[in-house]
């Protein structure tokens, strides 16, 4: 797409007969710039070709499918229904249930995850013995497959012989049927997500922290700031762009949450628990398309997820810009 428009523009510029420089001085310069940059365009072309074939085209095709009543076995032979799928989706209680679950799990996972990542990064930023070891260890959950991790966690959260319930009982508390309850199941899933992504975010924060000049901390120390105040008044404000970035990335991840709730069920069903108590949008989409074969409906959900992400990222960008403007 980008390439196409690029070449079209180039052609358009090349087409008109060379005008006298006095009448349009901007044009030759623009052309010169394009021809000067032709190798740059050539080098980025492969990426955009692949992008067009495997991202842009499926993306647009999904939009097209979402406007049809169509089944998995006959994707191209659907009947045109316009925005019918979208209307159905907005009236579907499953959709709203999944949206709600996605949001609550998202918040339960993202907020503690980023807070813990910030704290861990701060600790790792001190001169520690074996710092590299700790940093490597932190990234290990990220390198673990979701399937393996979730299987272990669903054992931990098991009702009868799970380690967590055993410990709860050991200290005299009641065992919890983690999978069955709405809150408990969502907490359990949030724990898995948090476990997996905290280290990753911590490393991003750590990298950003290391670029904060040490003099700022010294100045703050002389100004009378305790370590905590230094963290609050020097570290956090300096990390603000990074924090915004991790929020966006984690939010996108949270909206697309799929593997953890799917595997947490233990039996590979996409219903997200007996009463859909932890069915996320990702699970719903899969259920619509690949369990119920309504691929048009699934495409609609996919687009709804995309819209939600767009809105959240947009809001973040606006907040970021407002803060930047306030900075000036």
């Amino acid at each position, binding site marked *: 797409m980008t390439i196409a428009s690029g070449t079209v523009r180039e052609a358009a510029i090349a087409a008109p007969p060379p005008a006298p420089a006095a009448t349009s001085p901007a044009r030759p310069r623009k052309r010169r710039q394009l021809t000067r940059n032709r190798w740059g365009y050539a080098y980025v072309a492969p990426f955009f070709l692949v992008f067009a074939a495997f991202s842009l085209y499926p993306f647009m095709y999904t939009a097209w499918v979402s406007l049809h009543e169509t089944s998995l076995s006959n994707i191209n032979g659907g009947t045109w229904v316009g925005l019918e799928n979208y209307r159905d989706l907005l009236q579907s209680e499953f959709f709203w249930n999944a949206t709600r679950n996605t949001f609550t799990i998202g918040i339960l996972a993202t907020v503690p995850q980023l807070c813990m990542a910030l704290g861990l990064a701060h600790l790792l930023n001190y001169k520690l013995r074996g710092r590299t070891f700790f940093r490597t260890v932190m990234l290990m959950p990220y390198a673990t497959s979701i399937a393996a991790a979730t299987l272990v966690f669903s054992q931990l959260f098991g009702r009868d012989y799970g380690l967590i319930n055993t410990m709860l009982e050991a200290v005299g508390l009641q065992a919890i049927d983690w999978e069955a309850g709405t809150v408990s199941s969502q907490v359990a899933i949030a724990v898995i997500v948090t476990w997996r992504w905290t280290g990753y975010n911590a490393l991003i924060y750590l990298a950003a922290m290391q670029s904060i000049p040490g003099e700022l901390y010294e100045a703050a120390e002389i100004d009378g700031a305790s370590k905590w105040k230094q963290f609050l008044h020097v570290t956090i*404000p300096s990390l603000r762009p990074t924090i915004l970035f991790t929020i966006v990335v984690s939010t996108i991840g949270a909206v697309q949450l799929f593997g953890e709730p799917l595997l947490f069920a233990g039996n590979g069903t996409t219903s997200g628990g007996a009463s859909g108590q932890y069915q996320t949008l990702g699970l719903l989409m899969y259920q619509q398309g690949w369990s119920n074969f309504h691929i048009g409906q699934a495409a609609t959900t996919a687009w709804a997820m995309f819209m939600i992400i767009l809105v959240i990222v947009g809001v973040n960008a606006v907040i970021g810009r407002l803060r930047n403007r306030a900075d000036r």
Partner: protein
Amino acid sequence: MATVSFQQASRIYPKAERPAVDALDLEIADGEFLVLVGPSGCGKSTSLRMLAGLEEVDTGSIVIGDRDVTDSPPKERDIAMVFQNYALYPHMTVEENMGFALKLAGISKDERATRVREAAKILDLEAYLARRPKALSGGQRQRVAMGRAIVRNPQVFLMDEPLSNLDAKLRVQTRTQIAALQRRLGTTTVYVTHDQVEAMTMGDRVAVLKDGVLQQCDTPGELYDRPANVFVAGFIGSPAMNLVTGDAVDGGVQVGGAVLPVPRDQLTRAAASNGTVTVGFRPEAVRLAAPGEGLPVRVEVVEQLGSDAFLYTSLADAPDDVLHSADLVVRTEPRSGVTSGQQLWLSTDRSALHVFDAQTQQRVD
């Protein structure tokens, strides 16, 4: 307001061969402007940071007022510091930057605003209070850094090369402003610089350091007129003092084919260690002598400054092993008509000679 004293204070970095600061003894009077000067790596910044509490004191102690602060954290020392890169908080406005220490000290918002405004007025920053550092010029940032120090009304100001990020013209301007501000506030100030002109123009007293060791601490005038050793003699003054080393002979020091006359008793004491003597004389203490008298030199370069001219010369007949130092610099009238390549004869007043023992490098009077 307070006195500051370093008592045998040393800083030894782990695995370092020699201390970064070696048994520093310094007494700084109340309200004094003391400049620490020396080449890079001489330990001047480390000394300042030891006083600030940012660097450990390994042995010895540091006293501010009558309080031993050797082991106190920076915030308990009642000091304010201006950093070389200013270290302004980028996300805070000028006002917030200047008021941050007051805010942490729990001072009310109104009083904070009043004090920040007072400081801003002194520093001509009132128009920029709502700006962030990145929207300021280098000179303005420097003033904000100063302002952050003065709003706190601390006992001691510490300044770590605060002018080195300014351009030459602004540096000269700000130099006088800082000196005037310090006189007006009367706050004890310790100022670090590598620029001896800054040191000479700003300080009540100047402490010259080399390799972590204090060489001399005195008023600018005394440093210039009576440098304690060869290093100080060569470091203070621009262009630097002419230093020549040669064997002590009858009546003076052998420099190339000529003999530089040195009073007898000075010469004998200076030659006591190994018979060689270093003699120094400033460019302005040199006179052009009649041909055949004094040191014969060849003019290499003539530097015209308008108010005066500097002749960069080399000894006409010097074997390399006698002349350890480089060329001799002579200050003359701007329109003396001397051209490069010309042969001249130089003589100096005996009273303007600085005599050093070449072995110990110490001054001999």
